[in-house]
């Protein structure tokens, strides 16, 4: 094909393309795009992100296990030896419930507790509803 033929072809396609109409998407196209963007942004906001990364968690856990192994190897498991030999745990629990024998409660106090409990259970669903409305 010679140069003149090429030019004819070019001119012909130019005139064709100048008349080629632009297509339009659906009438709610922009709205749908914005909805999708909003949904994606919300997903990003509420995406679960752990405070400690997996690596940090693994390091902390390994260090803890290493420390336990070290303590075990150094001092053994016998409570009569090492770090725990001076602890008298039994003494901590002696007479801990002794106060109950002499305790009497007033009726007013009992009603106050009941009322507090009732208010608490009323507030839980109410607060939940309120928070859902304000956050979302």
């Amino acid at each position, binding site marked *: 094909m010679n140069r003149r033929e090429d030019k004819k072809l070019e001119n012909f*396609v130019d005139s*064709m393309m100048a*008349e080629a109409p632009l297509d339009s*998407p659906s009438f709610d*196209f922009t709205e749908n*795009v914005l909805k*999708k*963007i*909003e949904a994606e942004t919300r997903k990003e906001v509420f995406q679960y992100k752990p405070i400690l990364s997996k690596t940090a968690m693994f390091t902390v856990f390994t260090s803890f296990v290493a420390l336990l192994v070290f303590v075990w190897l150094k001092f053994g498991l016998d409570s009569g030896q090492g770090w725990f030999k001076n602890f008298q745990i039994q003494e901590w629990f002696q007479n801990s419930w002794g106060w109950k024998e002499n305790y009497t409660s007033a009726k007013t106090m009992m009603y106050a507790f009941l009322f507090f409990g009732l208010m608490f259970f009323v507030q839980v669903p109410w607060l939940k509803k309120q928070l859902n409305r304000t956050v979302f």
Partner: protein
Amino acid sequence: MLTNKEKELISEIRSGNTMAFSDFVDRYKDLVFTLSIRMLGSREEAEEVSQDIFIKIYKSLPKFKGDSKISTWIYRIAYNSCLDRIKKMKKTRIQTDLGHLEQIAYAEMDTALDRMVREERQELISRCLAMLSAEDAGILTLFYFEEKNLQELEESTNLSVNTLKVRLFRARKKLANIMEKHLTKEILLNHE
């Protein structure tokens, strides 16, 4: 490269103004959709891909440096997204061979087209464009969207100017061939 109005619009979008992005979508949606429909050949696919293109644009806008025209940058995202979708679809359109193009009579075709009503002519052009391969339709569409600027087309498609020239020539030939076949058919039908 960017006009003051475009700069203002982009900074509004970056600051999270959704109304500004809505204006941006309205301004470019027809161009993006036209490119998508010509490359993908289906209205449903084109609608879905065009929406994805605008979401990509929204996400990438903070990275846009402004070293090219905003429209060129949009066309690059749109063209690549359509190519990706075609790869996923694994569907190719029927290829038109370039067989007997030497005898094309452009003058006769022009006369036949001139005789048609404008709407008829536009419909016929759309039908012919739909018969091109995705790559040919994409490059030809972008060439005219970019006002025949090959450097900008190079940026949009990531193809060299020389490759583009060859592809454009082939696409033009195929389009003329398809048009000739259609016109012959139309003329024959009108004579019956």
